[in-house]
């Protein structure tokens, strides 16, 4: 794998849809049933990195901090915190926070959980800036970071940094009956079918007490079936409504569709180490050539917005990029770059939505005389291919917490060369502003 850092530019500003559209139907207040498109992977919060497992972990466990409904980071089990120096943090947790087995949460559990998280292959990247965690007293831990790390509190709200009871995690149960301290307690996981949780009557935060007595996550892989289950009242909430069904759900007076721009973006990457994308003019030309509004319309049925920058408009640091849809300028730039119009550009993609995006991009490129061929991959092969260094132009996506660091460091730091962005590009100024 090449580790060379190239001083060149490019990101094809992208499309971002990321409309999360939860839909709610009339409910039995005792039980709320939520449709999940895929089964969870694990009940161990340090052993999953998929969004559906996180949904369950976020309800069963607490963390030091959490996101409120405005997507701001606020204390969860933390009573107070101090930063004695740029690299040192002291966190004191609330007294009387009980795990579901009745035992009290202490700083030993916090240290154990953070250390466990740092050793987990799936989530260790979350606390990669942490140097050490030490117990100060029964309720206080001291965390030392490797560098002064301003967005640290955001990372502590991640599901992978959930606080688990040391006694349970070290037991032989192997996460079949997880014990947390969250507003819901685990009841049952029927593989491929459902996950059942019940209200934790002893939840420490009386104001944040669960409203429904039980919560059922129902696995419904097919998008149309999810919408129908909502319409028949078999489920109360669909978290990711298919964009084809939004209109129908909106027209149904029994349903309420909630739409909010998310922090997820879809981007088109170009490998700055590989011709013809090693030429900045080619990358700029491609950026001008793509009609991003058309992409949103075709690939997302209009339920999305154009991402004019790699930092989504929903978070701090967003600034509109310079690239408008201008095929003439694109053509001129390609001519300046002495682009070979006879060559066939391989456009890589994986998944249905990205296939649709690729088709629009292919049509746009064809308008400026560029012959592009779409190559579809199965997801596993795609991850490997986009991390191989042989990629040219390809479609991927990324999500962020409210701090832009979670977008910039993984995609633009030295460590990002190769994975996960795959475009093999970093500018010195970007390198300076990221942590690694």
């Amino acid at each position, binding site marked *: 794998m090449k580790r060379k850092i190239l001083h060149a530019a490019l990101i094809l500003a992208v499309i971002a849809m990321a409309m999360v559209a939860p839909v709610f139907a009339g409910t039995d207040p005792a039980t709320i049933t939520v449709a999940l498109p895929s089964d969870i992977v694990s009940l161990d919060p340090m052993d999953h990195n998929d969004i559906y497992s996180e949904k369950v972990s976020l309800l069963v466990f607490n963390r030091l901090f959490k996101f409120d409904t405005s997507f701001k980071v606020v204390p969860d089990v933390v009573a107070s915190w101090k930063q004695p120096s740029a690299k040192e943090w002291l966190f004191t947790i609330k007294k009387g926070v009980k795990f579901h087995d009745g035992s009290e949460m202490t700083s030993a559990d916090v240290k154990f959980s953070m250390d466990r998280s740092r050793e987990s292959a799936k989530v260790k990247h979350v606390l990669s800036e942490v140097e050490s965690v030490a117990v100060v007293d029964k309720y206080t831990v001291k965390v030392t970071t490797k560098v002064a790390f301003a967005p640290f509190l955001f990372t502590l709200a991640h599901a992978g940094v959930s606080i688990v009871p040391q006694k349970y995690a070290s037991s032989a149960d192997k996460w079949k009956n997880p014990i947390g301290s969250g507003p819901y307690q685990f009841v049952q996981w029927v593989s491929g079918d459902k996950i059942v949780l019940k209200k934790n009557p002893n939840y420490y935060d009386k104001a944040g007490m669960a409203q429904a007595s039980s919560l059922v996550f129902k696995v419904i892989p097919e998008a149309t079936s999810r919408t129908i289950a909502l319409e028949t009242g078999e489920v109360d909430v669909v978290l990711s409504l298919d964009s084809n069904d939004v209109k129908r759900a909106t027209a149904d007076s029994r349903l309420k569709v909630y739409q909010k721009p998310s922090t997820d973006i879809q981007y088109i990457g170009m490998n700055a180490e590989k011709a013809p994308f090693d030429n900045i003019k080619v990358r700029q030309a491609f950026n001008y050539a793509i009609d991003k509004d058309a992409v949103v319309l075709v690939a997302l049925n209009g339920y999305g917005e154009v991402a004019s920058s790699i930092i989504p408009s929903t978070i701090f640091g967003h600034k509109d990029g310079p690239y408008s849809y201008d095929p003439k300028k694109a053509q001129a730039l390609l001519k300046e770059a002495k682009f070979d119009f006879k060559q066939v550009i391989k456009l890589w993609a994986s998944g249905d939505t990205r296939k649709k995006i690729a088709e629009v991009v292919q049509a746009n490129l064809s308008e400026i005389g560029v012959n592009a061929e779409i190559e579809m991959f*199965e997801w596993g*092969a795609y991850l490997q291919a986009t991390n191989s260094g042989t990629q040219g132009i390809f479609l991927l996506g990324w999500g962020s917490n409210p701090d832009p660091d979670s977008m910039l460091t993984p995609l633009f730091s030295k460590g990002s060369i190769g994975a996960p962005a795959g475009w093999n590009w970093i500018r010195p100024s970007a390198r300076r502003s990221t942590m690694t």
Partner: protein
Amino acid sequence: MLLPVLLGVTFLVFSIISLTPGDVATMILGQGATQESVAELRTEMGLDEPLIVQYGKYLGNLVRGDMGISYATKKPVVEEILSRFPNTLTLAFFSILVSILISIPIGVISAVKQYSSFDNLGMIFALIGISMPSFWLGLILIIVFSLTLGWFPSGGADQLRSIVLPALTLGVASTASIARTTRSSMLEVIRQDYIRTAKAKGLGNTMVILKHALRNALIPTLTVIGLEFGELLGGAILTETVFSWPGIGRLMVESIQRKDTPMVLGCIIVFSVAFSVVNLLIDILYTFIDPRIKSTY
């Protein structure tokens, strides 16, 4: 016979999964994985070893009854399959029941009334049944019976009623082959001398058909039923997906997508064993239907 089949099937599947593009460690760690963490996980999972060594270790564990641990969920494969297989078995049983109840009467009546309107309609129905994509029929049934009429749940396996629509979807698909086999077999049988003799003895037409003709015509039909049932035991991915049915078909396809080799192999082994057992049972059933077969052993 089962052992060589299992050996061949597991080796083939093991090789195919290993040779297809994509790395399981990269998939487990996701898009943010660095080369170092992927390499670390590969070593931890034993994926660095030669393919034949990995397969040898798998077989060694298998003969001790250990099907391994799922790469994706870290759950024992046996546990996961045991939780899904009863659903698949139930669905297969009801589907084949639906199929038998529809196709055998169609096959018999079509043969008895050859070239009649019923015969033509019956065969057209069978043709439509096999031609309709199961996901399409499934969705239509959901729209009619769940959404519009509210008679049955649209998915899941929580209630007994949940099985009606998926069983109907799969059952209709198997109708064609069973009905056509029954028809052609019946056509052959009703022209036999002993049927004419039975009629000459003054037996009623219904009695001749049901007692003398059908029983003798059932052997080929039973073979087709066995094959269809065996296939159903391998899971029906599309139907299971449309109806959110937690069966082994969905588990196998999801595992293939995740390159979860131990889980895929576990599903394949269960499928192979189930198919072989069904075939054995069908062979045994022959002897009850036709005593002549029993007498040859």
